[in-house]
């Protein structure tokens, strides 16, 4: 597993305590899991995502991510409606391992409250949290 200084933690996204990240793209928010999360899980073999159109509130589970011997729930870092899902993950779940902030994105959300993202952690705050784990 990676040491903390080896982690890729970009500063153009916000982070949630459950290790999801959120990036603003126009009026929408894109959500995935952090490099730390994918590294802890190991080789990801399956990602289960919600239906487009599902309305989910902050903290609600929107899917699961599976490695060979573990399953983790994915939680909404912000509330909103699922506007799109990353269909590529069905065939290629390894994208989450290889490009967690790029092609490994999971869902696109039309946020209920666009300000909700401001409550999430910055790169620095997230790094501090990881150091404390």
């Amino acid at each position, binding site marked *: 597993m990676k040491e903390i200084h080896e982690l890729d933690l970009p500063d153009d996204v916000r982070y949630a305590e459950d290790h999801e990240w959120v990036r603003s793209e126009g009026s929408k928010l894109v959500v995935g899991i952090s490099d730390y999360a994918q590294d802890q899980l190991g*080789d990801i*073999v*399956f990602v289960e995502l919600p239906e487009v159109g599902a309305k989910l509130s902050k903290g609600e589970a929107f899917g699961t991510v*599976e490695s*060979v011997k573990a399953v983790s729930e994915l939680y909404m870092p912000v509330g909103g409606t699922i506007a799109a899902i990353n269909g590529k993950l069905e065939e290629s*779940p*390894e994208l989450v391992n290889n490009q967690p902030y790029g092609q490994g994105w999971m869902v696109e959300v039309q946020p209920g409250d666009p300000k909700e993202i401001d409550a999430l952690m910055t790169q620095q705050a997230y790094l501090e949290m990881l150091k404390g784990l």
Partner: protein
Amino acid sequence: MNKNLGTTGLILNEPLLWEKGSKGRTGFSVPESDVDASPLDSELVGDGPDFPDLSEVDVVRHYTRLSTWNFGVDTGMYPLGSCTMKYNPKTNERQARLPGFAGAHPLLPPQLAQGALELMYKLERYLDEVTGMQATSLQPAAGAHGELAGMLLIYAYHKHRGDQRSKIIIPDTAHGTNPASAALCGYRPVPVKSNENGVLSVETIEAVMDAETAGIMVTNPNTIGLFEDHIREICRVIHDKGGLVYCDGANMNAIMGIVDMNEIGIDVLHLNLHKTFSTPHGGGGPGSGPVCVNDKLEPFLPVPRIVEKDGQYNLSEDFPRSIGKLDTFHGHFGVMIKAYSYIMSMGAAGLKKASQLSVLNANYIKERLKSTYHLPHDRPCMHEVVFNDQNLQAYKITTLDVAKRLMDYGFHPPTVYFPLVVPGAIMIEPTETECKQDIDRFIEAMQQIAQEAKEDPELLKSAPHRSKVRRLDETTAARKPCLAN
């Protein structure tokens, strides 16, 4: 020290079944017909299954070669914690194969099946006696099925009293089957932590037990190999709030003739005949998971139940509060024969001695390995002992590497990464049927592996080296499942 048990020999490759054979061969002697052929409506007729055609020799060589790639208890020591891989006596196999048993139709009228019914009736009474419980049903087909039976009984008990409850307490040391079985009855598991000594404390249970909680699922001795020493008080707390205590009896092998489960407050427990009572595991089943209950739960046991009157045995459905049937017929009768045969061979003194020696073997391993491997709970254990990989972390060696390297030494690895409360757990259950020499050899192998971890860690990381195949790509297997040809 004798030579390392593990070595390499001539291992033969063997293709898949359908890569062998030739259309028109057969390994079966189909009887000549003595009746007229009778065609079936062609609308209903299919092509028949696409099976390969093989000769008897093809089939015999195929499976003989496959068998040599397996490690069994008959091959060597199999200290798989929580699984009680004791020796499986051969006489038991003989008994199960007697034509009177093997050829018996399950729906024979009882007067034509007295031998089987008597055996089952007596086995139930013997299991009552071993556990101290009041009544037993042999219907559950495996341990998890016995757990499900236990949960259904608890559910039926509360329902009968008009007191339906929604939760069940499950300690963090539990087998995964516990919460899964509880969930089938709609119970939401309430997890509780064990204390720094690796057991449950009474206060923890008091804090969560309430009138909404159906009861608790405990494993005793628990999965860390420790006896839950507050079990009596815990049972009292549960009972005071109207709950019931389910005990996972997977670890009964430690306490036969020593602890009376009824007396300490257990309401229902399941046994694994394939653990404590020596029936073989068969590469993952068939097992058998009888469920034993006290007087509170007896009316709810599965039907039909075997009843006796004047030496005649019968099947009775006359138990109106029963949870119903758990499998098509009577459960895994073939497995019951083996457990019965084991109890008849051991007697009371033999069973107690088995428990004592299983505990002796585990404590002996604990004492001799605790200076080498980290022991999270250094106190006398029952029939299994849990170490972890903490002392090896400096060399970036994990529990998995130790397990894989043990294969090269000719041992089946212990259970690894369970229980979950001990990170990197190495759970060793030698069982009573291992002799001192073999245990010493195992201990020395473990010590040598620890030494190798320091001197040549790569040797461990790339282990095993002497098996038919080496470490397998489980990631691709799960990403792109290939489950049939």
